[in-house]
């Protein structure tokens, strides 16, 4: 390897989990005796001018870390931060043992990563393993998104794959009624905003994600919204009206005139 910085050495000793257009995600260890961390590496984009690339990468790593900390301080369940190397584009966060909501809901499972045709478990069995019903899960999602919006953070990419449910086997819940915890992940597109519009669009994006990945999603989304409503309180009436508006026109506002 040409580069031998500490962060590059850390990455080369880690296991690649997935890759997107912006970043590669690894599972690694900061120290061999410690617990696992998730490393999100925003690799160099050769199609951009080098100095622009450095500035953008730094700003995005910093932005994601700040959004996570703001969520933590506001009581939103998100992974803890473990290391930040903005100049190399590396963000290390807590490894969460569990499954994504997409995997746990009907027919969202299996991205085809080598599991073959044989379904190992039916989704309901898996949810059972987590000790919650679909209704409880929707309730947890609604509460978490509401807490995030109350802190004026817009996620920007709410989908069922960006929510994880902790495995009760490796997590001790402090709430006797719910043995698990819903964790929001991937704040790469998040930003700060107090506008009703932005929050409504965030919800709309999630509604579309539900509709396109899970059959019969309407009652599930409605259940989620009911929990959201209860948590946000007085802001809800304005939000509901705006959500209806967004549903009619779509995510983008008309910029004509």
């Amino acid at each position, binding site marked *: 390897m040409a580069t031998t910085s500490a962060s590059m050495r850390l990455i080369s000793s880690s296991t690649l989990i997935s890759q997107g257009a912006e970043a590669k995600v690894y599972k690694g260890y900061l120290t061999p005796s410690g617990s696992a961390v998730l490393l999100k590496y925003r690799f160099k984009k050769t199609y951009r001018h080098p100095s622009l690339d450095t500035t953008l990468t730094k700003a995005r790593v910093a932005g994601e870390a700040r959004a996570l900390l703001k969520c*933590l301080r506001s009581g939103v369940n998100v992974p803890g931060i473990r290391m930040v190397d903005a100049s190399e584009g590396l963000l290390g966060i807590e490894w969460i043992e569990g499954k994504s909501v997409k995997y746990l809901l009907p027919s969202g499972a299996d991205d085809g990563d080598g599991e073959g045709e044989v379904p190992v478990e039916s989704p309901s069995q898996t949810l059972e393993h987590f000790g919650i019903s679909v209704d409880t899960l929707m309730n947890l999602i609604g509460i978490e998104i509401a807490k995030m919006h109350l802190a004026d953070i817009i996620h920007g990419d709410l989908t069922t794959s960006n929510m994880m449910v902790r495995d009760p086997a490796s997590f001790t819940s402090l709430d006797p009624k719910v043995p698990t915890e819903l964790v929001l992940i991937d704040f790469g597109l998040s930003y700060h905003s107090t506008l009703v519009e932005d929050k409504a669009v965030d919800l709309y994006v999630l509604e579309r994600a539900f509709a396109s990945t899970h059959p019969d999603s309407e009652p599930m989304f409605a259940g989620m919204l009911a929990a959201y409503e209860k948590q946000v309180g007085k802001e809800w009436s304005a939000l509901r009206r705006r959500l209806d508006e967004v549903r009619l026109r779509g995510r983008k506002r008309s910029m004509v005139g």
Partner: protein
Amino acid sequence: MESLHFPQFDPQISQVSIALFTKVSNAGALKLRIIAAATAEGQAGDVEREAVNFAFIDARLITSKLHLETAVCQALLAASQDALRTRTVHSEVLYNLNPTHNITEAIRRYGVSDANTDVIVVRIDSPELTPEAVLKKMEAVVVGTLSPFSDLENITDWASIKKYHKLNGELAITEAAKDPQKEHAVIDKIVTSSVAMKSVMS
């Protein structure tokens, strides 16, 4: 004492030794000794500097082992990039623990002082320095009882930590205020994450 290895960093800073001493009686003298060593001249100065070549941390302000390890890891990262904000990698650990960018404040708050009876000692060095040798050096300067790290839970001063990190009034804390166990877990998570992201703090 616990030893940690960070294989991603250069050998001379890859081995970290962490020890908790309780019932420490010479904290005030230790502080004066560190200050004196910093300006001592000649060969005697070098010997004295090596004798106190540790990070001495007030254990009351540490929430967990992970909290301290995170501060060490970010200090090593800064050292590996020649981006230390303070003079040594040991003082950088203290700097990383403090939520502000004020170095004097970081050392005053997180370093040893007269009132300290519980001190965490950290040594960053190469693996060539054996754990036995490090412990011997530590015991030569600290007068106290070497204790397991699990004793930290009875030492942590949660009220001061909440004050320094401006956590009073934050939603996450007020929500968990009824249950001390939950509150401590929430504070630990926030404080550890703050240390990790200090380099990009707004």
